[in-house]
């Protein structure tokens, strides 16, 4: 039997995103030069939701980009399985922008390392910040998030998955034991 536990429901996710949206605005003093970049695939939907919340608050549109970090992974030459490559779409130069990277779960930090390398290839951002819905710990690189929905202490034998309606399903965060 696999043990499953819902650690965040739809309302919880929504409240966290609302708070993160306000924190982003507070820290960056508004939307000027702000640029959200969602990491495929979960981060893309969360970036979109943050954009909507920021637009509702400030009445201004913030550009959103999509980043697939596959080509920047550090395990490509060692793993035999090739991850399926998704499309990257950064609609404008990132020169001088205040970029907020958005991902669903922060774990080892390797995805974020790859994402930062990828971003630099699109220009020289003024700064890069990181927003995640879940921080589950177990970092393998010196990386931390600026905006966190929920800190979720987990063991390495547990899987944390973020389910979103955009992916088909209901909004919830589930933690389950794997063997």
């Amino acid at each position, binding site marked *: 039997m696999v043990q499953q536990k819902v650690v965040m429901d739809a309302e919880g996710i929504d409240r966290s995103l609302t708070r993160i949206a306000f924190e982003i605005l507070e820290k960056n003093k508004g939307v000027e030069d702000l640029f959200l970049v969602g990491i495929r695939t979960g981060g893309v939907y969360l970036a979109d939701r943050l954009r909507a919340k920021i637009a509702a608050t400030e009445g201004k549109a913030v550009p959103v980009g999509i980043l697939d970090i596959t*080509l920047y992974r550090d395990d490509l030459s060692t793993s035999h399985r090739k991850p*399926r490559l998704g499309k990257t779409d950064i609609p404008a130069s990132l020169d001088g922008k205040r970029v907020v990277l958005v991902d669903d779960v922060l774990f080892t930090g390797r995805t974020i390392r790859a994402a930062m390398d990828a971003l630099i*290839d699109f220009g020289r951002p003024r700064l890069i910040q990181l927003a995640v819905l879940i921080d589950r710990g177990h970092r393998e690189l010196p990386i931390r998030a600026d905006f966190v929905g929920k800190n979720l202490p987990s063991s390495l034998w547990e899987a944390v998955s973020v389910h979103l309606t955009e992916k088909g399903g209901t909004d919830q965060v589930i933690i389950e034991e794997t063997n």
Partner: protein
Amino acid sequence: MKLTRKDILGIQDFSVAEIELVLDTAESFIEVSTREIKKVPTLRGKTVINLFYEASTRTRTSFEIAGKRLSADTINISASTSSMVKGETLIDTAKNLEAMNPDIVVVRHSAAGAPHLLAGLLKQSIINAGDGAHEHPTQALLDMMTIRAKKGRIAGLNVAIIGDISHSRVARSNIYGLTKMGARVSVAGPATMIPRGVETLGVAAYTRIDDAIRGADIVMMLRIQTEREKNNIFPSLREYANHFSLNSRNITLAREDALIMHPGPMNRGVEISPDIADGPRSIILDQVTNGVAVRMALLYLLTGGDE
């Protein structure tokens, strides 16, 4: 779905799922070539050797650019500057290259089956960049990618391939690929250029261009290999142009939204009239752009760690 094969030798043994995987991956690679910094670190430390025993500008450059945009080291060897002129055999050349530990060897050779021979001898991945009149798999993949991008699908489309079908590896690979993907393929050319029994590949064969392009969604013109004029396969280039060139007259038989393709290099005024080649329906340069993406996809999918 992943590409499990070691080599890319031909479309004949490709599955639909494999073709779709390559096309999907290639579509994602298009974006890299539109960046200001057209390079990703994916194949850092990998070596790609382009071993070309036949003349080529497009294919060799395309493979080289594909490798470089993925950060691989690419080395070009062409017959005229290699030890082949000193009499070294293909196998000896290949074994020597293998000893230098490349990761992928891209081969073009005038003899059908040459890449297959090397695939059996070398532990490296071999990509066939054209072998004799046999196959040119990367050309068929980039053609299918271009058709799918422009038309949104391949299945159900009418594709006419016009020219020297007998000697064309482009035609052969495209026939394998397009029929697998559900297109209706018709071919046309002088009777001396239509291989006997071509219908067994699932295509309709004609000896008049009009019959093949009537109702076509895609018209794919092949280069007439002018060196074959000497072999009496056709009387003269002018005669060929009179009967088989695509021009503003016969193009009206195709569908109104039909698109024109050509693998290059073109003989303007022979198989295709310049106003068609440069006209609004021509997607010949899109083919070239997509060629880089398809080759990036294949290099990406073929390299990786050990199992």
